[in-house]
């Protein structure tokens, strides 16, 4: 930014731009064992129904949940999220369900903790009673008088909680690739007004791939025009506002060898990759986006879905989802998870 441009900004906007964006390093300990740094771009790649959008839901929830609420320890980050929806697979009601489950779990955990604390106190162990702990006890004390169900929360309380989380979420639907590019340019003002926003999501970056190809004529360069403009605009935003970008990319193409391998695998079984994971992973991914996008992406997660063997089935879930995390070319590790009504569950690092 140059001198003249600064003049057009309000003091508040300058502060928002230059001031520190929220800390996202502790977004998730399983997915980011080494922490997550600002300006990282993570691409979520996979076929249909492999859990890409579900993973975004999980990450949104981690972000928009508060650290504490009414003295309860919730454990979220309280960060704002901008969700660019081009696939129209985003369901706010689904997100509300996941938030509710988290609240219920947090309340139960707090109750359990409280019991523990009480026994500790009875054993006359001096407890570190800092401000937060005090609040926690007060809140729980209030709750106990009004217990109606398992968690002791009324429906209004849950709704207030869900809405307070949704205040940190901004959803933008885009229906054409031009609209998407212009919208990314226009995000400056939203980001300026909301310094709490630290994460940008795009579901998906490949939604207009065929339409762009079609309207670009015979020249590949013109076909990729909008893609390049999009990447440029995103890059500028990410760097200027220190954001993290999560973008899904659909598996539109598949490499031949992969299909052959699929045919070989035992049906119904949860098959392990053959011939070393590196080999398998390279085969799984197929790039079709423009060069600029490939340079922008710092990490790629490759999603796949596997049927579980009868004996492995837990809670009627019949699929296990796998994510292979790679940074540019180097594989970093596998994470598996299951999906049920309350979102992503049982996330584990596979060694």
């Amino acid at each position, binding site marked *: 930014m140059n001198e003249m441009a600064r003049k057009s900004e309000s003091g508040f906007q300058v502060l928002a731009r230059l001031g520190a964006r929220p800390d996202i390093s502790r977004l998730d300990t399983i997915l980011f064992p080494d922490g997550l740094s600002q300006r990282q771009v993570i691409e979520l790649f996979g076929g249909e129904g492999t859990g890409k959008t579900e993973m975004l839901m999980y990450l949104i929830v981690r972000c928009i949940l508060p650290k504490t609420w009414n003295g309860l320890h919730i454990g979220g980050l309280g960060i704002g999220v901008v969700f660019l929806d081009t696939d129209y697979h985003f*369901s*706010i009601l689904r997100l509300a369900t996941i938030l509710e489950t988290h609240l219920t779990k947090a309340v139960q955990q707090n109750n359990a903790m409280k019991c523990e604390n009480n026994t500790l106190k009875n054993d006359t162990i001096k407890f570190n009673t800092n401000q937060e702990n005090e609040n926690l006890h007060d809140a729980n004390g209030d709750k106990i008088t009004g217990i109606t169900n398992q968690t002791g929360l009324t429906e209004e309380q849950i709704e207030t909680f869900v809405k307070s989380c*949704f205040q940190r*979420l901004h959803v933008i639907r885009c*229906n054409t690739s031009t609209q*998407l590019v212009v*919208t990314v340019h226009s995000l400056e003002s939203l980001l300026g007004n909301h310094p709490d926003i630290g994460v940008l999501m795009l579901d998906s970056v490949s939604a207009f791939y*065929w339409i762009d190809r*079609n309207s670009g004529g015979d020249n590949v360069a013109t076909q990729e025009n909008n893609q390049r403009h999009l990447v440029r605009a995103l890059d500028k935003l990410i760097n200027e506002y220190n954001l993290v970008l999560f973008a899904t990319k659909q598996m*539109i193409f598949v490499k031949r060898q992969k299909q052959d391998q699929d045919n070989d695998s035992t049906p119904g079984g949860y098959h392990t990759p053959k011939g070393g994971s590196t080999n398998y992973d390279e085969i799984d991914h197929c790039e079709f986006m423009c060069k600029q996008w490939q340079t922008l992406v710092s990490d790629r997660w490759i999603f796949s879905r596997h049927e579980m063997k009868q004996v492995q089935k837990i809670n009627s879930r019949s699929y296990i989802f796998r994510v292979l995390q790679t940074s540019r070319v180097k594989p970093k590790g596998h994470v598996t998870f299951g999906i049920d009504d309350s979102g992503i569950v049982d996330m584990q690092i596979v060694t």
Partner: protein
Amino acid sequence: MPSLRPDACPGLTATVVERLKEANVSTVIEFLNRGLEELSKDCGLPYQELTAIRRVLLAQYSSFPMSGVDMYDEAVSASAILSTGSHGLDTLLDGGLYTGEITEMIGPPAAGKTQVCIATAVAVVMETDHNVVYIDTGGSLCPSRLHQVMQSHDITEEKYEEMCQRIQCFKIFDIFQLQECLQELHQKILNQSAPFHSNLKLIIVDSVAAVILPILGGAQTDSHGHMIHLSRILKSLATDCSTAVLITNNTTGANNDTGQVLPSLGRSWHHIPNTRIAISRMNESSSKSFSSESKSETRRVSLVKSCKQVIGGSTMIAIKDTGVT
């Protein structure tokens, strides 16, 4: 890509457009890509003027952010779940067809896709006051069957007439007509001019494969472009107009070893629907417990893709004279 036209916004006069063109800026996106200071130098236009133009262009061509709270309130008040008329199918779909979503039903020929469509259309007009648009692309909608299913609800002749008027049918045989027809519907719903359209909650396209398959192949980019364009129209119908969209698609017998059926139309299409159910006839081994008579009418329906539910569940439905149960 929208180009910069004179008078598209107040500051954008013919001379300004000309100046910008000299600096190699002729489209909205090119304008936005350039730094304003640099642009101001290149074409000798005042910085302030360019800032104003930029602001207007952004407002005109961008989509507006919606706060999560507003979206939630709107979803709670405007969402509807439409019963398919079959209890088993409703349970499988977590209540029925959701507005704002595209539900795809796949199955081999004669699996009963059209029967489910007809039964759903009838159930919606009978049990709710919502209206239905039924787009038939394969010539498979049989009026006498529609009549038969309606009669089973035991209604008077007058009522029958009224019900029939609430299901609007279109016979369309190519993708361009379909795109046009759907866009027209979109406009009519947003204008809320006719009472029929303001109460329209379900759009059925039986089937999408019938119009897309003929154009696939050959110049791949063209056909895929048209296909995705159609999907965009369907998606915006579902979300902007808050309607439920039910489409049917064929299957490919891709994997004989695993017995897994895949929807036709290729990978790019696979990503489109929010929910997908697969319908199939019972095979010999699993239908032994049924009498030979019921074997022909029982179908297995399973949930193969969903953005909100655990997938893998399945249910049995029966296709009878009275509809689908």
